[in-house]
């Protein structure tokens, strides 16, 4: 029992974070929003960093890492508001594909869209090379209709038939939870920086206790969502029977933390938070979008509710890490 990231895991996180801080700042989001919204150079950079092949076995050209590493990277993608379909392709679909496809995927030559009945849309379908649904891959359609998300950098399409697949749903919900956590962390950072700089009544607003307490409450929410995501990743990686419950729990906690971070961050920013000029809005919109993706709060709460209040899950204090 050692509930810490390994040195390798910390290095991975830091390397990705540093890269994205340098290459994928708010100015990139603005450029994408005013342009084509996807940029092959960004994709290439993420592939270059090894993210495409993160979960692909070494003999297929990947890094053969696991779900812990995947949620760490997903958190960084959320923190940087990356919108390329790298999370869907590399962190969700990759292990569910056949070996030859994994090879192309690790090389950055394959983009996979994910179709599941829980979502009324398919993300990034137009530029996908194939679609994963119901446990198999099918060709992407010639034509599809674009939907408009509140998040300008999200590309959603409809309609296309989708078949259920629990493994896909669980993995996708976990990776989405990690992205929500990252978005929440970034919003706390943005609001904290703003509170240090913005002055009213002759002093930084961050010196007012009301602002301090708002931001402290966000910090608490985020701090206690994080280990839920890590445990869920570990349990899923190790095939624990209760992993789906842990994933649902993590998705609920990450959603609540991110939405709370968004509402608090805009309150701290005041009217400025309401503008396109400050960067906050990109993350708020992503949080609102991901809140309902891959199972909304109601869906995931219900899964936990059935297990816990329904009595199917043993809940004595010694069961925290149980595998059954």
């Amino acid at each position, binding site marked *: 029992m050692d509930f810490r990231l390994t040195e390798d895991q910390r290095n991975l996180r830091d390397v990705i974070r540093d890269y994205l801080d340098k290459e994928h700042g708010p100015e990139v989001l603005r450029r994408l929003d005013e342009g084509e919204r996807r940029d092959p150079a960004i994709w290439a950079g993420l592939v270059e960093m090894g993210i495409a092949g993160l979960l692909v076995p070494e003999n297929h050209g990947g890094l053969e890492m696991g779900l812990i590493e995947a949620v760490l990277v997903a958190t960084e993608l959320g923190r940087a508001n990356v919108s390329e379909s790298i999370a869907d392709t590399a962190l969700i679909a990759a292990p569910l594909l056949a070996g030859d496809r994994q090879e192309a995927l690790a090389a950055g030559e394959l983009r996979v869209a994910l179709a599941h009945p829980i979502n009324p849309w398919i993300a990034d379908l137009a530029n996908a090379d194939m679609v994963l649904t119901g446990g198999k891959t099918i060709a992407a359609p010639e034509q599809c209709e674009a939907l408009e998300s509140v998040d300008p950098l999200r590309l959603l399409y409809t309609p296309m038939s989708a078949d259920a697949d629990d493994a896909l749903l669980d993995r996708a919900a976990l990776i989405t939870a990690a992205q929500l956590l990252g978005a929440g962390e970034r919003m706390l950072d943005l609001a904290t920086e703003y509170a240090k700089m913005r002055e*009213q009544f002759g002093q930084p607003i961050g010196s007012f206790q009301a602002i301090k307490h708002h931001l402290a409450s966000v910090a608490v929410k985020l701090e206690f969502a994080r280990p839920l995501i890590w445990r869920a990743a570990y349990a899923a990686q190790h095939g624990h029977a209760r992993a789906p419950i842990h994933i649902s729990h993590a998705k609920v906690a990450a959603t609540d933390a991110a939405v709370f971070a968004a509402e608090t961050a805009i309150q701290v920013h005041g009217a400025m938070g309401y503008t396109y000029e400050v960067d906050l809005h990109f993350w708020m919109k992503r949080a609102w979008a991901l809140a309902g*993706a891959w199972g909304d709060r*109601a869906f995931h709460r219900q899964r936990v509710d059935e297990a816990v209040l329904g009595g199917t899950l043993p809940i004595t204090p010694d069961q925290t890490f149980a595998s059954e």
Partner: protein
Amino acid sequence: MDLAFTPEQQEFRAEVRSWMEAHVPKAPLKTLEGREGFDEHVAWERELASGNWGMVTWPEAYGGRGLDLIRWLIFEEEYWRAGAPLRANQNGIFLLGPTIMEYGTDEQKAKFLTPMAKGELIWAQAWSEPNAGSDMAAIRSRAVRDGDDYVISGQKTWSSRAAFADWCFGLFRTDPDSKRHKGLSFILLPLDAPGVTIRPIRQLHGETGFAEIFFDEVRVPVANRIAGEGEGWSVAMATAGFERGLMLRSPARFQAVAQRLVALYRQHADTASPDTRAAVLQAWMDAEAYALNTYHVASQVIAGAHIGAEASLNKIFWSELDRSAHRAAMSLLGATAELRTLPGGKGGGEENAWLEGYIFSLSGPIYAGSNEIQRNIIAERLLGLPR
């Protein structure tokens, strides 16, 4: 205490209802925050004025009906019951109009009030500045006296409606050596005056309801000043009092939101989580409570009472209620909450008004005095806690 409407009040309700049924646009107007939708909303203001429904609480002399606040509440109930549009004219009706009636000269009343009532002059606010948001006394924009004119320079921001409005009103520093609340004057000016530049602020959802206003030596007659030079702060506080008070936030509007939320819940009852179910019911209960409190305050105002810091209780309640109601709607919509257009059957779906409403509701606890400021006011002025 008498909670029954008089026969006259009931007749009035019937009159409003029948007019609204005949005149309210069948299809929703485009958003007030774009040019096209703004024009549609102005056309609706003129339609209202044609039925003499534009400024029902104003005196008849200025184009109103001289109704008391109870009839205003009845009017609003029928207005929202009928699904009528947002008011492009609300800065004029509720903020500037009452201010001119209280502080304006006869000439100012004649010049401004009737066109306002007719929907011919749409007003923008010019309060906030980049460094004077919650702290409005930090205003720097200045108006320098030059003969019979002021020459105005500076910048205002967060001006709602300014992108499309005709005139604006706001506070300017007429005494350059003054500090804080002193030396400010309340001045009206046309937004097409030479030296005025409007820069729409792109909001987070891409619309442009707010704007910055830049003033570069704009000449404005001294006659456009309301009340005395240097008396702007107290005039503005009276205006802010109206704003924070009940008039701008009609309870019927929130009751209509709650009603739509209950309908949305019924559509999603089988998948709603227990906390969302509870939140829906709470939103309805709170909208009721807000309506009752407003009737209570209105009854007191009719009887001559002055509403002071109590308005802060209202501001907090409606803004948090509105945010909670829309948050619950977002939860009910789940995976479709993020879509700007809800999936429909053949022929496409409808605009996701809940999403727009949620985003707008987040501004409620911020504008017109942030809820942090309102809680300070309650604590210090109503409860008497030390500053």
